[in-house]
């Protein structure tokens, strides 16, 4: 007797796979409610000491020292925006990097890799959910932060939002490469910890890049995120930018293409290596 398969690949089913993967991640994310809540409150907890420290440096609510660097005395709005970016950085480093690894440990990675869907597509699907859930938690966090510490955007929200897009896409492209590398390593935690911390530190999330000792500034200038955050702050808070905003935007767009393509390449290469070495499913 002949068996007829039910599998009929088409563009429609490829798109549906993407959607289904995103939906699965969404469901699983919210089924760890403590984790979701933590995502919202952790950033607030971390910037509270900064808020009070800032008060120790301010007279009449204005941090004049800070204003000399950034062009605005409103350091909390400055930092809140940085914290939103930190959220995305952490999600990409921990979420993307560790997501595949956790799947591997749990045993479901093999199940996913046995399906006739491209493995990069699987990664892209997870990216979509990640982008969405992180945006949601960031906005909630921003809302709470605004209520607690004050958030006064005086500039264009639309421009800031549009700038965020290539920056985030580029960041996630980097995430592809990172996910691949994490797959190969047995104990990636330290790499992720230190990596995410350094990126946060050098991209200006907590303090203006200009205030760094002069010999460290070049490191910051090499990170595309620095320009992205700078441009967003420039648009929203009318702070001084490192370079003319237009140039920063061009840098971001180039970064986005390079990272998306490069990240995919690295991921493919690594994935091939995993298939040769058979580290899948074993840890």
């Amino acid at each position, binding site marked *: 007797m002949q068996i007829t398969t039910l599998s009929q690949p088409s563009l429609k089913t490829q798109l549906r796979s993407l959607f289904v993967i995103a939906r699965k991640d969404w469901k699983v994310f919210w089924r760890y409610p403590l984790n979701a809540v933590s995502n919202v409150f952790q950033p607030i907890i971390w910037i509270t000491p900064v808020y009070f420290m800032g008060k120790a440096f301010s007279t009449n609510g204005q941090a004049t020292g800070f204003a000399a660097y950034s062009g605005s005395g409103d350091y909390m709005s400055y930092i809140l925006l940085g914290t939103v970016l930190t959220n995305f950085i952490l999600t990409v480093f921990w979420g993307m990097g560790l997501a595949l690894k956790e799947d591997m440990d749990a045993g479901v990675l093999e199940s996913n890799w046995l399906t006739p*869907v491209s493995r990069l597509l699987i990664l892209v699907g997870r990216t979509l959910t990640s982008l969405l859930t992180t945006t949601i938690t960031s906005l909630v966090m921003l809302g709470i932060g605004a209520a607690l510490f004050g958030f006064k955007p005086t500039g264009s929200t639309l421009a800031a939002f549009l700038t965020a897009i290539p920056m985030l896409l580029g960041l996630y492209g980097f995430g592809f490469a990172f996910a691949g590398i994490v797959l190969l390593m047995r104990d990636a935690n330290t790499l992720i910890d230190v990596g995410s911390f350094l990126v946060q530190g050098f991209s200006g999330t907590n303090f203006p890049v200009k205030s760094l000792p002069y010999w460290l500034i070049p490191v910051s200038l090499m990170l595309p995120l620095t320009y992205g955050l700078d441009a967003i702050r420039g648009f929203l808070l009318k702070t001084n930018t490192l370079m003319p905003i237009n140039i920063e935007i061009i840098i971001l767009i180039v970064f986005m293409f390079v990272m998306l393509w490069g990240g995919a390449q690295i991921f493919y290469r690594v994935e091939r290596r995993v298939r040769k070495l058979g580290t*899948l499913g074993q840890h």
Partner: protein
Amino acid sequence: MSDFAIEATQLVKKFPARPGTGDKKTEGEAASSPKKKRWQFWKKEPKALFTAVDGVDLQIQRGEIFGLLGPNGAGKSTTIRMLCTLLEPTSGTARVNGFDVVKQANDVRRSLGTLLAGERSIYWKLSGRENLEYFAALYHIPQPIAKKRVEELIERMELKDRANELVEKYSTGMRQRVAIAKALLARPPILLLDEPTLGLDPQAARRLRELIAELKQEGHTILLTTHYMEEADQLSDRIGIIDTGKVIALDTPAGLKRRIEQKEVIKLEVTGWHDEIGEKLKSITGIENLITRQQGEADLWEVNMQAHNSRTAIPRIVEHISGNGTRLVNMNIVKPSLEDVFIHLTGKALRD
């Protein structure tokens, strides 16, 4: 389109080995090559390799149940992983449903339903139904068809009552059933089942074996790995015995047993066993493949051996055993089972 459901030709898989665990040959190479000077850091030293699969040939017919039998570490899992495209062969080729496992990997995946690592292969934070709907989409099953298929399988696998509960709350048996349903979703012509009854209670295992027989009736080709003899014997049309990376025998269960038909198996139960007695017994003509196994913690040993002629061998056996604190508690002469075939071929027990 190939005639065979699965065809493997000289499949080889080598892994980089940790020092001391590699094959003797490559370790020898690595050790005897002249030590490079410290400043020659760019020259690569030959790496020691461990060969998990050493030239496996398989030809599985459409519609048959093929059992791959072998102890742990024999290369069963590695072979299966190469066939389902999770692992790339070092050399050799394999075709599944006519597609090459390396060059046409996606087509292979579309043609296969796999059961690997049972309960760990599904999402615990999703319900049974959600798991099936998810994977159905990944197998490119158009949505309206997928919905019906998922319901059909939930019904068949007796998961209806709890299909909407999270898998983390299911028993091991239920999780296994979800994993099997997942393998059947796209109605694939070929099924790969890796140790499907491992960890199941006897009743669940029996139900699963019935299912496998049904699936064969429905036209599926099934490649099954197991280390349960009786299961392989009962279900398979043909069996391949694999040991240290090679297929050492391939035949129907009856055919395999016929190989040692002229032999009989003598099973003894003994107390006060000494290894010297084993040596003496082995020296009796016609006695081969002596295996001893201690029964738990007690001073009771099970001794199996194969004999060409039990009638002449028995008096000599009794002679050697009596005395010196050794006592024969029980003796049985039986027809060879598949396990005995295995012992005959490899000199070791399956459950080592």
